[in-house]
C-alpha cells in the first residue's frame, strides 16, 4: 500500500460520501452545499487522473456557475425543511438489494476493463503536427472531432433558446437581484472582473499549448457574469435583445463558417489546411468562448425570472 493509493482511496471516499450526502441530506440547502463540494472534489480527481483540462472546466463550471444556479434554485424551492420525501415503490430491503446488485454489477464490469485498447492515442500524437496545436485534448476537440464539438456548441445554443422561449411575454430574461449587497462584495467584484477576463484570455490562448481552451475560458467569463448578476448588475441587461441573440449564436455560426471556409480552400468540412489551422482554431475558440459565456450566464440569469415576481410566494 503506497501513499498514492491511500490518497486515492481517501479522495474517492470523499467523493462518494459527498455524492451520497448531496442527495440524502435531510436539509435541502445542506445537500446543495455538499453538491458544490462534490464538484470541487471531482476536479481533484481529474487532476489525479491526468486530465487538467477537465479539472479546469469542472472547477469553473462547478464553483462559478452550477453552484450559483443550484443555490438560487434551492432558495426558491427549498421550503422543504427536515423532510426529504421519497418514493416508496418497493419495500426497503428489496430496494437495497437491487441497489447493491446494481453496484456490484457496475463495479464488476468496470474492473474487467483495464486501460483503453487500440492505437488511437498514438495516432492522435502522430498527426499532431498537421493539426496546428500542441494540446492533444484541444486537437481532438477542435480538429479530429471538431464536428462533435460543433454539435455540442449547438446543444448549448438550444438550451439558451429554450430558456428564452420560456419567458413570459414582455419579460426580460435578465432579472435584477434587488438587495443591498455588502460594500465589500461590490468592491471585491470590481477587482475580480479584470482578473476574470485576464484569466479567460489566458486560458483561451493557453488552450493550444497546455490545459485550457474555449469552454474553460467561457465558463470563467460566465462565472464573473454570474457574480455581477448576483450583485444586481447583470451584464446581459446591458445589451439589446438582438445583440444578445447574436452573441448566443456567434459560436455555433462562426464554427460553421470557418468549417465552410475550409471547404472553399479545397478540403472537407472542418478540414483546416495545416498552414492556417492554428489561427482558424483560435478564431473558432474565441467565438465559442463568447457564446459559452453568454449562454451559461443566461442559464443562471433567466433561472428565476418568473419566480422572483412573487418573491417567496411559494406555499
Amino acid at each position, binding site marked *: 500500500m503506497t501513499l498514492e*493509493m491511500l490518497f486515492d482511496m481517501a479522495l474517492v471516499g470523499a467523493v462518494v460520501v459527498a455524492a451520497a450526502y448531496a442527495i440524502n441530506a435531510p436539509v435541502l440547502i445542506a445537500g446543495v452545499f455538499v453538491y458544490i463540494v462534490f464538484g470541487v472534489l*471531482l476536479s481533484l480527481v*481529474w487532476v489525479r487522473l491526468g486530465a487538467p483540462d477537465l479539472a479546469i472546466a469542472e472547477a469553473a463550471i462547478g464553483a462559478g456557475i452550477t453552484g450559483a444556479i443550484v443555490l438560487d434554485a*434551492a432558495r426558491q*424551492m427549498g421550503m422543504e425543511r427536515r423532510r426529504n420525501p421519497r418514493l416508496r415503490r418497493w419495500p426497503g430491503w428489496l430496494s437495497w438489494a437491487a441497489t447493491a446488485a446494481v453496484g456490484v454489477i457496475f463495479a464488476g464490469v468496470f474492473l474487467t476493463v483495464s486501460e483503453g485498447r487500440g492505437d488511437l492515442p498514438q495516432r492522435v500524437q502522430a498527426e499532431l503536427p498537421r493539426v496546428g496545436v500542441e494540446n492533444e485534448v484541444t486537437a481532438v476537440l477542435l480538429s479530429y472531432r471538431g464536428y462533435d464539438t460543433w454539435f455540442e456548441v449547438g446543444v448549448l445554443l438550444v438550451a439558451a433558446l429554450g430558456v428564452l422561449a420560456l419567458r413570459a411575454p414582455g419579460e426580460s430574461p435578465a432579472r435584477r437581484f434587488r438587495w443591498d449587497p455588502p460594500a465589500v462584495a461590490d468592491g471585491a467584484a470590481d477587482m475580480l472582473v479584470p482578473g476574470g477576463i485576464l484569466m479567460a484570455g489566458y486560458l483561451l490562448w493557453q488552450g493550444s499549448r497546455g490545459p485550457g481552451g474555449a*469552454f474553460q475560458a467561457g465558463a470563467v467569463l460566465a462565472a464573473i457574469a454570474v457574480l455581477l448578476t448576483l450583485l444586481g448588475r447583470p451584464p446581459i441587461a446591458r445589451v439589446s435583445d438582438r445583440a444578445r441573440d447574436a452573441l448566443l449564436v456567434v459560436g455555433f455560426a462562426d464554427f460553421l463558417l470557418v468549417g465552410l471556409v475550409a471547404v472553399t480552400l479545397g478540403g472537407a468540412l472542418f478540414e483546416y489546411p495545416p498552414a492556417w489551422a492554428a489561427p482558424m482554431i483560435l478564431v473558432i475558440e474565441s467565438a465559442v468562448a463568447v457564446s459559452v459565456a453568454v449562454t451559461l450566464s443566461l442559464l443562471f440569469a433567466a433561472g428565476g425570472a418568473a419566480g422572483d415576481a412573487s418573491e417567496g410566494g411559494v406555499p
Partner: protein
Amino acid sequence: MTTFGIYAVGAALLLTIGIRGALRRKHLLRRILALNIIGGGAFLFLVLLGYRESGEAGPDPVPQALVLTGIVVAVSISSFAIVIARRLNARTGRTELPEEGLD
C-alpha cells in the same frame, strides 16, 4: 488494488448512488442533482480509460475530449431542467412532478 481499481469502484458507487437517488427522491432539485451524479460516475469511468498507470505514455486524450463534451451537454441539460423546474414551482408551488394523471 490498483489506482485504476480504486477509481473504478468509485465510479460504480457514484452511478449506484445517483440511480438510487433519481428513482427514490421526489424533490425535483434532488433528482436533478442525482442525475448529475450519475453523469459524474459515467465521466469518471471514461476518464479512467485514458489514465495510464505507467508514466511513459501520456494519458489518452480522446476520452478526455469526450468527457469535456459530456460535461458541457450535462450542464446544458441540467441548467435547463432547473429553469423549467423553477417556472413550474413559481406557477404551481410544486417541488415535485405530479404522480399520475394527464390533466
